[in-house]
């Protein structure tokens, strides 16, 4: 469903994504991991047609995102980095808008909206304007918008950040359910424990280059240890101004 061949994106002298090769199959949940600034969002933008590659090739649902933008947009669901919400629409109106624009019938839109609002505990805030929503509510609204048109591929940029544990679990189960129905899920996340539970494929990127690509079963150690070994090692500094330890 997603295929990248030598995908490269440069911004002037800076190479954000460098010769990236990747395949994601139908029904797979691919976690795309890396530190901030590694090139994750740039890759997602190229896959969703928001950014043209400098060189290389990307195909999603067999389509070139740059050439077949509109056709591709009808087949994918996206939870973008900035969530892409309108301040002047309520949570419910965002979902109705999605149904209208993606050609879902009014009756189906209403029933899917009701189900998603219920599943994501958004019912109480359905008439809250996006501008007045908490970050978690905004994230859940954008997530519901991505799911509502029943896309063939889901792109989710950090879906689990800023949501409560119960909602995170519900989101995880919803994603596993859509994957069982053949939807390819491509997500980025920094919450490694959640990734370890949900992903079927792990791709790690560092300074624009893929440094690991395998199924979860092929990881030689725990995801967190492998990530720290391959991608970045945390350095903890003592804050001297805290004074001597009292414990």
């Amino acid at each position, binding site marked *: 469903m997603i295929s990248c061949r030598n995908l490269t994106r440069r911004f002037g002298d800076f190479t954000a994504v460098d010769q990236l090769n990747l395949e994601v199959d139908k029904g797979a949940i691919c976690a795309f991991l890396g530190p901030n600034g590694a090139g994750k969002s740039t890759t997602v933008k190229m896959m*969703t047609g*928001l950014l043209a590659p400098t060189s290389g090739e990307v195909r999603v649902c067999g389509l070139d995102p740059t050439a077949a933008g*509109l056709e591709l*947009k*009808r087949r994918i669901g*996206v939870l*973008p980095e*900035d*969530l*892409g*919400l*309108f*301040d*002047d*629409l309520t949570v419910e*109106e*965002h979902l*109705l*808008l999605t149904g*209208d*624009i*993606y*050609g879902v019938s009014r009756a189906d839109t209403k029933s899917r909206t009701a189900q998603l609002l219920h599943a994501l505990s958004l019912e109480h805030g359905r*008439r*809250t*304007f*996006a501008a007045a929503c908490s970050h978690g509510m905004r994230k859940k609204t954008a997530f519901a918008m991505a799911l509502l048109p029943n896309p063939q591929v889901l792109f989710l940029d950090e879906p689990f950040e800023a949501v409560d544990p119960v909602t995170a679990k519900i989101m995880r189960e919803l994603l596993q359910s859509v994957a069982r129905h053949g939807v390819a899920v491509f997500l980025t996340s920094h919450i490694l424990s959640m990734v370890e539970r949900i992903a079927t494929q792990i791709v790690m990127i560092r300074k624009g280059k893929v440094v690991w690509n395998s199924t979860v079963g092929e990881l030689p150690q725990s995801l967190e240890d492998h990530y720290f070994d391959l991608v970045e090692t945390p350095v903890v500094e003592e804050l001297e101004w805290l004074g001597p330890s009292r414990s």
Partner: protein
Amino acid sequence: MARPIAILKALGTAYRRDWTALQSLTGNNFFLLTLFLLQQAGIFVYLIMGLVLLFPLSTDPLRKIPPSRLALWPLTRREHWILRVASPWINPITWILAAGAIWTAGRTVSAGLWVVVAGLFVVAFALSHVPTPGRTPMWRRVPGIPGALDQLVRKNLREILSTLDFYCAAILSLSVLAWRLFGPPLPREAFMAMTVLTVGALSSYAQCLFGLDGEGGLSRYRLLPVRGWQLLLAKDAAYLMALLPLALPLAPLPALGGALMVLAVGHAPSVEHPSEQTRWRFTMGGALGNGVVQMIALAMTVSSIFSMTLWFLAPAAAIWAGSVWWYGRALERAM
């Protein structure tokens, strides 16, 4: 005193950065139109603009601090009182009113006007503390239209209703309505002039149709499977839904023709040079040239339809449709 002074300094900085209201006035077509064309009669229009501006400018500066933050800071009761008393003086309107009051002391003719203005200021200041009843403010309760663009049109209409341009046009329209109901008959030409003024009051908004969508909104436009012309159509439909009710006491069909021309000219800066706008301010159009072209096209179209024949509506509609198609394609390329 150190803590209140530090807070007042920060508030002053925040207030200065937000002081876009007067800047926005100078980039507004309506201001330019009255400045260059109306001369003496412009004073009446400036009074309307001033009244519309007074309300958002009168808000309490202390409200810039989130209440939870203010509650968490280690301030004594005395320090809270100092902030309460000193913070209104960060707002330049307070100083302008105080200077006006001193200047008019002893001038019986204008002191009353100052009292009225000061009263309005106090009302607006107090109103900014009154919690809005219900969850949805009145200006956000707007009807939709049938069709796939329903929610987009609704959103766009809410955006227009959060600019001062709309309220300025509404005051002009309502003053004509009141005159027609209670005053002597107006000369026929007055309707044409007031139609040009009312559509002109909303014309700068047509140059920055995407100015209130924010980064999130623009990002969503890029993801939605819709054509550029559909996005422009949703913007224009909302614009006409806001404007046409205001044109009913004036000359509705010439207003429609003028609005179509204003939109046709406004698509170019909206798409090619999008500029971010601030809510509850007058909108700032693009380059001066765009505003001049808009106003000339508006005046010519309104006067042609009003004085000659309704058939001039047809070329206005054709030019508008062509502009939607052309700049719709440009919008897709820009996104």
